[in-house]
């Protein structure tokens, strides 16, 4: 079964049902529930989290450890349980990129946890001292890897 929808940025998108990610409501976007992850190109460190319910909405996301190798998010076990994951390794962890003025920053305080197999995701607000606007390291330090 496929789902077809028109996205303002990406035009017509066709998704297989198993590519649809059902998110718990994101802070600030209570009516955006269904998303899909799309790589903007194969070798990019960045990809898109595109909203199916709100065709104007998309986030740039990235795997934080490419950019911040010592990032250590303490994800509470109840979040893992809520996504049917036993350990963090069972899930994808992504962070949202904010692009403002001339700078790109990462929201390390509230990563996205995704269980692709189950088609589920949620944004986790971490306890502790993580920045919502951690600066990106210099480009030379970024090791680009294909989106898995």
């Amino acid at each position: 079964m496929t789902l077809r929808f028109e996205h303002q940025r990406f035009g017509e998108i066709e998704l297989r049902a198993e590519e649809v990610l059902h998110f718990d409501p994101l802070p600030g976007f209570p009516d955006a529930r269904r998303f899909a992850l799309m790589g903007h190109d194969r070798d990019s460190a960045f990809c898109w989290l595109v909203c199916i319910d709100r065709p104007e909405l998309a986030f740039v996301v990235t795997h934080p450890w490419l950019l911040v190798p010592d990032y250590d998010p303490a994800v509470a076990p109840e979040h893992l349980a809520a996504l049917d994951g036993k350990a963090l390794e069972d899930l994808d962890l992504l962070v949202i990129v904010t692009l403002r003025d001339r700078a790109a920053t990462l929201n390390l305080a509230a990563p996205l946890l995704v269980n692709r197999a189950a088609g589920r995701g949620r944004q986790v607000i971490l306890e502790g001292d993580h920045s919502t606007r951690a600066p990106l390291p210099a480009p030379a330090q970024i090791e680009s890897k294909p989106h898995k």
Partner: protein
Amino acid sequence: MLVLTRKTGESLRIGADIRVTVVSANGGQVRIGIEAPARIPVHREEVWERIAAQNREAAELSPESLERLLRREGEEEPS
């Protein structure tokens, strides 16, 4: 807004599976205990709002800033 009066130690129920208990009240400060299923996240309002504001900002992607991000990525390719 529904407003209810509770004494210390008393609770209220939201639906079948959420219980909110007044643990203590002292001066202007109230300690609240919350029992809720794991699928329902519980946060202080100001923490939730901080993340909501960041999400809203992240959703505003100008084409120029994106262009810059992609160019930035392009720079590393030769290495």
